């Protein structure tokens, strides 16, 4: 699980960045943890940072393994609308990721192949996630939940940054 993993195949995802790149560049990296794993996501907008965090989760789940999500166009899949409400941006992100996990498990661990976040306000996030309907199930690390541990969602330079840890 290298830093700066590529995220090809997801229509709304730009290539991921590392910490040294400009904050406004969208991307994610996985953060080491003794037992679990963290995701640090960056984006020019809150919507973009939510998308990148979702792609980070998808990578942990094994959903974006090479060859699974063909580059150059949206893969076949079922797009599911996602909407969550919560009291602040951090709780919205945790709820959003947990919603994706629920949908993933309810679809027999179908791989996440694309995500689009249309709007994040102070108390609501809405968009959609596309799950593979043709490929094999995700075969990465099983994620129990997104946690509030060291949760951060905030402005970072000209863009937004989020950090969230997953219980695996």
């Amino acid at each position: 699980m290298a830093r700066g993993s590529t995220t090809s195949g997801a229509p709304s995802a730009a290539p991921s960045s590392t910490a040294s790149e400009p904050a406004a560049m969208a991307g994610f990296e996985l953060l080491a943890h003794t037992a679990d794993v963290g995701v640090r996501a960056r984006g020019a907008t809150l919507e973009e940072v939510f998308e990148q965090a979702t792609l980070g989760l998808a990578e942990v789940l094994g959903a974006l393994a090479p060859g699974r999500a063909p580059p150059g166009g949206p893969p076949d899949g079922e797009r599911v609308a996602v909407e969550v409400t919560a009291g602040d941006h951090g709780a919205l992100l945790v709820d959003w990721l947990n919603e994706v996990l629920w949908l993933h498990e309810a679809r027999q661990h179908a791989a996440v192949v694309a995500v689009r976040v249309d709007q994040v306000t102070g108390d609501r996030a809405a968009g959609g996630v596309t799950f593979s309907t043709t490929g094999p199930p995700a075969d990465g690390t099983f994620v129990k939940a997104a946690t509030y541990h060291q949760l951060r969602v905030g402005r970072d330079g000209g863009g937004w940054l989020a950090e969230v840890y997953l219980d695996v």
Partner: protein
Amino acid sequence: MSEPTGRRGAVEPRQVEPFVWEVPVGYVEGMRVPGVVFASGELFARALEDRAVEQVANVATLPGIVGASYAMPDIHWGYGFPIGGVAATDVAEGGVVSPGGVGFDIGCGVRLLRSDLDWEADVRARVGELVQALARRVPRGTGGKGLLPLDRAGVERVLVEGVRHPLGRGVGVEADAVACEDGGTVGGADPAQVSDRAYQRGAPQLGSLGGGNHFLEVQVVDEVRDRPAAAAMGLRPGQVCVMLHSGSRGVGHQTCTDHLKVIDRLGTALGIRVPDRQLACLPVERPEAQAYLGAMRAAANFALANRHVLADGVRRAFGEVLGRPVAGLGMDLVYDVSHNLAKLEEHEVDGRRRTLCVHRKGATRALGPGHPELPDRYREVGQPVINPGSMGTFSYVLAGEERAERRAFASTCHGAGRAMSRTRARKLMSGADLRRQLEGEGVVLAAANWKLLSEEAPYAYKDATAVVETCERVGLSRVVARLRPAGVLKG
């Protein structure tokens, strides 16, 4: 945005007696009691590097916490609570319950089956076949459908009755319930507080191992160190045992997720400040906290029943391979104990009996000899504590010591404890290489996902021997028997 952890003050941890380290009040802002870590110098140094000691201090800020924020020698960085953490709050004094102090895998635990089988005479030549039969019979990995799928009414009964529900359907024997913590049924479960999603996640999953660090091992008793206790547990050298580690599957994950959201929001609204948001908590006496506890106990019952059903599958696989009736194998349950749970327990604090909400996150209850809650056969020797090592290394059976009551609210360690990240563990060795190495050492393996095998490599964990010996030195538990792995099924 939540506050960052680790606003360290000027005070530093210090060793107060051999294998006991104190994290003084002031190490992080807002500590109400000190932290106490049971560890050798080496284990403590690792916990400091790992930031787990900071988490011990963070837990010490919880409203109503009494005694100290404790950590067992297998301590490591968790999410909110450290893994290996024990925290008790005084219910009558506004003490809180924190879902993060139980975790997402509510009721996760370990069970050990003994047998009348001798390794050399009965099993050694058949162990490959046995592991294959177990691999066929025991659902594992992320998508595994359980051995006993349930409808909604069945899930509800499991949530209330624990192992009693599968027992009533002819799975297992009565003695299995007696040898479980809480007699196999956690009282006070409230299935109405478990969400539809948790029901849906649980329905297909009863009797499935799951993924991550969950496992099933065929083991051999390698050494007995406490003969009377081993005799009470039916353990003798050279005997084959089976250890399994699993939890409440999607029921627990969903239950924690659902209630944490409510408690986080309400706790913030009530002005309860915690240094890490995952420590979100509410006074036990609030209705939302009671709702969580009711749901948590229900999920714990699911975990107990899950391990019960898995154990039945194990017995059947042994019977099938060895061509003998299951009842004649002597595969009795030694004990089943959870290491992720919050319980209301009576303990003496400052000379007064109090009702405490004791959180054990990666720590095990360890009742000493004579405790009234113990099954008769363990009354004299203390509660069995099942301590898995890492894959390919020794596991231990311990017994609770009377001193554990005063030392850490009758608690001890839960296993080896991770020492490095999964990413790093995977980089050090491929799953295929690790498989070759372990098989070279005589351990037969089956994994749901070979690619991820080395995440759970022995080198990713602390030395289980150092952990259990530390617990023995400080009087939390004593070693009864050491078990070596012969066959491993990874979740």
